[in-house]
């Protein structure tokens, strides 16, 4: 671990250096929200953001991604696109989600496309400075992390503590190397930031500790809450699109403009969408909105945790709450409700 202490000006100089040398994406403002986008200059970087519209999964599992092409003369060819890039400004809760996706896409049949993109990424994280109005990361144990990043930036007054944690982080440290080292005591100060954030990232009050979620769900399959919430659901899938731990996809096929090249690609899909579990011939194994709504919560709180040593597939980012037009997607409300009856 290398620890540096930098001023805001020094940080900007370093970011501009990174931008000049590598493909770089960073958090920027987008009307009154924030989004990851190609970064042209350090001054556009907003390390004080609350939450991005879409999570960083877009960089590892893009919305549209080619799988294979087919041409009569050359048959089927794999398409695997992965170029090195730097992602600046990832929040801790999103890092937790990325590490879960790493496990999912490495399990049993590893996904070569996800893993290639993931291995091309250098992740520069930043501790949260402005909690979002729907966050409950403080309850989910995801308001801070001590791993999963290559570099972690923590703001302390007018300065930043820069924690360069990995070899990959060292590769982009450039001019930071010549700057002053931070004293070990800064780690204690960072701990205070983490403790503060654990309390601050609690905009929605969760009364059901995440460790209880699998058991709560175990006995709540016929709970009235599924039907009550789903009655208002438009089945639009917004909650799944913005979720950092949703990764379901569809596979589709297209003919190119040369009318010879055929491409097969995958696109994000979501279990909240009406036809998700439909089979040829029309039978739909999850035709009721309530069954789809319930399935999503069971994935988050039970099915995925069973595959990932108990890790809950919700990091408390609150994006689903913000995205839901019917105002029914708040996991805090649902799990508080399940806990009431318990």
């Amino acid at each position, binding site marked *: 671990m290398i620890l540096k202490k930098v001023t805001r000006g020094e940080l900007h100089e370093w970011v501009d250096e990174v931008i000049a040398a590598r493909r770089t994406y960073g958090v920027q403002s987008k009307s009154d929200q924030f989004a990851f986008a190609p970064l042209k200059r350090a001054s556009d970087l907003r390390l004080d953001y609350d939450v991005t519209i879409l999570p960083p999964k877009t960089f590892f599992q893009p919305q549209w991604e080619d799988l294979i092409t087919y041409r009569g003369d050359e048959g089927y060819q794999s398409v695997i696109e992965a170029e090195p890039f730097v992602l600046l400004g990832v929040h801790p809760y999103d890092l937790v989600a990325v590490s879960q996706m790493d496990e999912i*896409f490495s399990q049993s*049949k*590893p996904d070569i496309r996800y893993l290639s993109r*993931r291995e091309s990424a250098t992740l520069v994280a930043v501790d949260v400075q402005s909690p979002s109005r729907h966050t409950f990361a403080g309850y989910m144990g995801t308001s801070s992390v001590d791993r999963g990043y290559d570099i972690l930036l923590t703001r302390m007054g007018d300065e930043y503590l820069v924690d360069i944690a990995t070899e990959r982080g060292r590769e982009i440290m450039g001019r930071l190397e010549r700057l002053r080292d931070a004293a070990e005591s800064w780690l204690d100060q960072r701990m205070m930031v983490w403790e503060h954030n654990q309390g601050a990232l609690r905009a929605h009050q969760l009364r059901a500790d995440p460790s209880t979620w699998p058991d709560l769900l175990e006995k709540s399959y016929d709970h009235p809450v599924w039907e009550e919430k789903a009655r208002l659901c438009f089945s639009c899938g917004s909650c799944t699109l913005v979720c950092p731990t949703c990764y*379901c996809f*569809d596979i589709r096929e297209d003919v190119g403009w040369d009318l010879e090249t055929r491409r097969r690609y995958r696109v994000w899909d979501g279990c909240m969408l009406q036809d998700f579990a439909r*089979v040829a011939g029309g039978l739909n194994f999850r035709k009721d909105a309530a069954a789809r709504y319930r399935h999503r919560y069971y994935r988050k709180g039970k099915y995925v945790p069973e595959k990932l040593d108990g890790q809950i597939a919700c990091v408390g980012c609150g994006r689903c709450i913000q995205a839901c037009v019917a105002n029914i997607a708040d996991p805090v409300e649902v799990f508080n409700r399940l806990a009431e009856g318990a």
Partner: protein
Amino acid sequence: MESGARHSRDHYLPRPALVLQSRPMTESDRFFEVRLECKEDLGHMPGQFVMVSIPGVGEAPISVSSSPTKKGSFEMIVRRMGNVTQAMHRLQPGDGIGVRGPFGAWFPVDGELKGRDIFFACGGLGLVPLRSAVNYVLDNRGDYGALQLYYGTKCPSDRLCVEELDRWRDRGDVSCEETVDKADENWSGNVGVITSLMTGLRVEPDRSAALLCGPPVMFKFVVGALRRAGMKDDHIWLSLERHMKCGVGKCGHCQMSNLYVCQDGAVFRFSDVEDIPEALQ
């Protein structure tokens, strides 16, 4: 992140294959014999499926219908249902397709089923995957006890593998009984649901097993009939239908509660799924 993308193989890349035979079986079902271009055997077991690619159209999950004891090529029987299967119905000998897989679990003909009396119960297209198990068992006939096949279709013109059913009957070492929901003027056989064939069922609980494939509604009644005759829940295997898209347990389409049908099934032991809420409904 330093895991081994370099060492992973591309599970989405189909293997090129050649259509050797393509002929109609019913008005809406077609029989195909296919050989991988590499000329290797598919390497499947009865009950497994492949993803079939038609360039420019897409991919669909298709049961392998031939037994792995048949070498050099494999067979599929495909109903015209969606884009891909419609395109498959236009395939002619010599045409190329792509194949991924085989995927999933299989009927344990190579393990637990040995030495057992086996009941095969299938409705409609359910004969297609079971045909693989039947032929495997018949090709290793000495390894199993008594064999009984029940096959139900909506009407006589829906019956698949008609000549093969006659060949099985002619062997004398497997009993094949058929029924149709609705007869026509040429049908002299049984009329009624599949369980109407199973009234005199004789099950020896410790040495009997049943393999089922058919529409969801069939399972409830067939399992009921088997149970009443003494069949144990963990001696029943069934093949469940869902829409597999990736085949490798990721895309989520075939998920059934916590299970991915493409990886954990499509063949399941009944006692493993009877309490899974989304499995049998």
